[in-house]
């Protein structure tokens, strides 16, 4: 979730009012953003991913102004026609969509430049999914010649000066030489042609998805008119991004001019700031919220959230793309109503609560074992491969994780490994160390939906100078007896145990686990120098 740092003075100027600090904090929180802190002249706020229009001072001030009743209703933005065109060549199939606009009569200072840089970056990270879905460019339009072409070319045949460089290079080299090229090269995997914006005098404006050209330049204090392009793989996404950017620039004092974007199959005008109309289902919304709002009340609340209203239809501002269903309108109405104003109620229904049987059974086993003075441990489910196989003198098929950041990157298939690790880590503590764990393990199984079967197991290890098979068998007998079960042990083999001192446990004619004295090689592998005996049983087989 992105955090933005906003300039408080600029924000308050746009808001049109200076609120006392506590009230400002409270209102921002109740609008639908996560306020981190307000310190000196900085407002640090975490914006929810579905509201990219709030990622700037202009956007947040616009929302807060209507929310606190200063400027309710749909904000109108004037758009004039520029008469210019952007021509989209069919070659840009790797990033087929673009929406563009001109904004004129701006005046930039350091602060405004900081603001547009922040929104470009934050918007591309969230709304643009880290440039994968879309990315945006703002260019001083003074030196540009229309129509502008959006066209894909072989990067080895184009030369230009990327932003920050003082010499022309072959475009392909941007991926290795330019910081943005290196950072986003993974997006261009498999491309032999790359999309470029090239003006009608063949000047390269930018190379997507990396960087503008140094010639077209950066926005600075002398810039008055700006060309905005939003390009990517989703038409709606780039349209909304453009709407967010141009309205922000308009709030900075600019005038919006639309362009014709000529696709091979159609021509569209961007930006299109006409609000979408959705019929309000007030019955549904009242039901969902537990309120009894009238049309008028609903209209007023919608106005607080920046919506328009026209004869039962809600007018959705063009910079919002999060209204998918009536429930989205319901939430905005609830926010406008004020979450603090809802009268809580308890639902008048009767149901009986119950714990799951396996959990109850596990708890019963816990109680029996602590009666034998065993100490319960609780371990992670993730382990290292050598802890499952090499250290236990086994060689079984184990289940790996694809991408673990830490060193534990396999799913445990037995509780013995984590229990042994506990003994190894506690050699400085008093003996006897008699421990148990009840937990889930993972085994390969083609017949399940995931290909993995999970089993609830009980593992017990007894560790002290005088421990032996008799002792662990006593624990097993005591446990089964308390559970009302009859079990028997059959001689068996298991490579983790001393041959001749290991058995397979049967309950109700089913094999449920193993019991025995651990092989000294296993103990040595773990660095344990005190004898260990143990057992592991599968719990769901027991009942």
């Amino acid at each position, binding site marked *: 979730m992105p955090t933005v740092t906003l300039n408080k003075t600029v924000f308050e100027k746009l808001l049109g009012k200076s609120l006392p600090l506590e009230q400002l904090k409270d209102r921002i*929180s109740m609008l*639908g953003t*996560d306020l981190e802190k307000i310190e000196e002249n900085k407002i640090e706020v975490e914006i929810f*991913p579905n*509201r990219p229009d709030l990622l700037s001072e202009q956007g947040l001030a616009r929302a807060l102004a209507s929310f606190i009743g200063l400027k309710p209703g749909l904000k109108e933005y004037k758009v004039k026609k520029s008469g210019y065109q952007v021509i989209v060549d069919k070659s840009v199939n790797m990033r087929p969509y673009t929406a563009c606009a001109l904004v004129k009569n701006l005046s930039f200072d350091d602060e405004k430049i900081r603001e547009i840089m922040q929104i470009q970056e934050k918007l591309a990270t969230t709304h643009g999914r880290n440039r*994968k879905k879309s990315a945006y460019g703002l260019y001083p339009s003074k030196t540009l010649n229309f129509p502008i072409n959006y066209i894909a070319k072989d990067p080895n045949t184009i030369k230009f000066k990327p932003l920050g460089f003082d010499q022309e290079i072959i475009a392909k080299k941007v991926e290795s030489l330019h910081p943005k090229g290196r950072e986003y090269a993974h997006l261009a995997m498999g491309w032999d042609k790359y999309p470029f914006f090239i003006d009608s005098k063949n000047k390269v404006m930018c190379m997507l998805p990396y960087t503008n050209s140094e010639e077209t330049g950066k926005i600075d204090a002398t810039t008055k008119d700006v060309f905005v392009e939003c390009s990517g793989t*989703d038409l709606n996404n780039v349209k909304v991004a453009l709407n967010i950017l141009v309205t922000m620039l308009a709030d900075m004092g600019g005038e919006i001019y639309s362009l014709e974007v000529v696709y091979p199959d159609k021509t569209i005008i961007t930006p299109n700031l006409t609000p979408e109309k959705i019929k309000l289902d007030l019955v549904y919304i009242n*039901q*969902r*919220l537990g*309120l009894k709002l009238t049309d008028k009340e609903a209209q007023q609340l919608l106005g607080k959230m920046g919506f328009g209203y026209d004869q039962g239809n809600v007018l959705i501002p063009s910079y919002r793309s999060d209204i*998918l*269903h009536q*429930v989205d309108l*319901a*939430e905005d109405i*609830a*926010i406008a109503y004020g*979450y*603090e104003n*809802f009268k*809580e*109620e*308890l*639902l008048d*229904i009767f149901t009986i*609560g*119950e*714990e*799951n049987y*396996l*959990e109850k059974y596990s708890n019963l086993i816990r*109680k029996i074992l*602590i009666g034998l*003075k065993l*100490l319960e*441990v*609780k371990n*992670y*489910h*993730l382990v290292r491969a050598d802890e499952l196989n090499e250290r236990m003198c086994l060689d079984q098929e184990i*289940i790996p*994780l694809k*991408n*673990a*950041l*830490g060193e*534990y990157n396999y*799913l445990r298939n037995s509780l013995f490994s984590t229990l042994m690790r506990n003994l190894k*880590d*506690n050699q400085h*503590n*008093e003996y006897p*160390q008699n421990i148990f764990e009840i937990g*889930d393990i*993972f085994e*390969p199984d083609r017949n399940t*939906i*995931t*290909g993995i079967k999970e089993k609830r197991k009980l593992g017990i290890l007894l560790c002290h100078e005088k421990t032996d098979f008799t002792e662990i068998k006593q624990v097993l007998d005591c446990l089964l007896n308390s559970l009302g079960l009859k079990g028997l042990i059959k001689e068996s083999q298991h490579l983790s145990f001393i041959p001749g001192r290991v058995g397979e446990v049967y309950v109700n004619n089913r094999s449920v686990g193993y019991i025995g004295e651990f092989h000294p090689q296993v103990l040595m592998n773990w660095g344990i120098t005190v004898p260990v005996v143990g057992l592991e049983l599968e719990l769901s087989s027991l009942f």
Partner: protein
Amino acid sequence: MEIKALISKLHPFERKVLPYLKQKKELVEIVAVSGLQEIEVMRALQWLENKKLLILITEKKKVVNLDSNGLKYQKDILPERKIINELTEQFQSLSTLSHRLKLSLEEINACIGQLKQRMIIDLKKEKDLMIKFGPQGKKFLTEKTIEEKFLIKSFPIDYNSLSDVDRFALDELKKRKDFIKIEEVKSVTVTLTDLGKKLASLDLTQDVVNRLNTGMLKTGDWKNKEFRAYDVEINVPSIYPGKIHFVNQAIDYAKTIWTEMGFKEMTGGLVATSFFNFDALFVPQDHPARELQDTFYLGGKFEKGKLPDADLVKKVKAAHENGSGTKSKGWNYIWNPEEAKKNVLRTHTTVLTSQTLFNLKGEKLPIKRFAIGRCFRNEALDWKHLFEFNQTEGIVIDENANFRHLLGYLKEFFKKMGYPQARFRPAYFPYTEPSVEIDVFHPVRKEWVELGGAGMLRPEVVIPLFGRDVPVLAWGPGFDRIIMEYYQITDLRNLYQNDFKQLREIKSWLK
């Protein structure tokens, strides 16, 4: 303290040792005469000191002892003695003399200097070094040298008790290899207090019962006898019970909160397909939470699982692509079934909600379910982050459930958890709308703390899974933080450190 009471508290060791203390002062001597082991005597002395019957002075003393050569020459003849016995009034060659006496150069050098200084010998340098009696020489044919006198003492000797002459001999012998070792020895000396002196003169050999035993009970031998009184105030060694792990105790407590409110437990696997963990919950396939750095994906042969019921898959696909069937716009992209097959370690307990909604399709309402269990996120371990954490969540499915009921349940739930003051703020989750963030007023820290999220499940989630658009309230606090607060743990790793000392000594969960 009254004498009788004092005597009744004396341990058998104390009774044994006390009488000797009138004569013996040194620990080693007391051990020798009492017949007890040193550790038993030390205990007795310490207990007696605690009872203010004596004062123990532990000193570090410097003590002189003979080393290997010193011990050897207690019996053997020192080189200088051999030389003196061979001397005459006439000069003779030292080398011939030493050859005859089989003395090494080292042995000669060790003593020749002193012999000259003390005028026991005369030396003359000619072709060889020549040696004869000095003015004092003949005296030492019958008299012992100071070194010889020193060596026949009995060791060890208290350094401070040496005379000046002894010190001189000591210094000389120290110069020779492996003759002397000077060590620091701890010595314990006892001084009786007046009270102690009084008691030491008494007859302490009463017939006192120490341990009550079966024999005594059967014979009645305890009658007419006194019981040794114990010091009931002293510390005794600790013992530890078997214990349920404290995290499990906390989990049990959370379960009672749910079951007391009428919720039934829902369970399911820790591994799930992305379908139920993400897609069925309307999380779009390009959502950042599905990225490799946040979620554990299974590897090797276990990368993909199977998609469930084909009809359900169709409905979820439609919901994502264009919202059809749910009255929504959907996310407007092409939904990829291969992406949905990818197995993950569940990132939230909400996956159980999606599976349960599907399994309960068509069941009678109202339905209330809760889950509590381990969830996973792809992190490296440090004091603030674990890759496994506990989550809990509850759902209420009822035709008449609405947002106000959600807030009502939340207030009630957090009150039961010990937070009577709660407030609500807007939040965002991909699968709920409206969504809520709950802050509670922390009674100890006296500040508002964010504790959990909640919301009403979106129709794009409920309709494909449950079959129709019915309100589903859902919520769940973060759980590990509550455990850490209760136990004053600041490093998350301590939750699963399994240090036995910590587990043995940690208090039980009681809320």
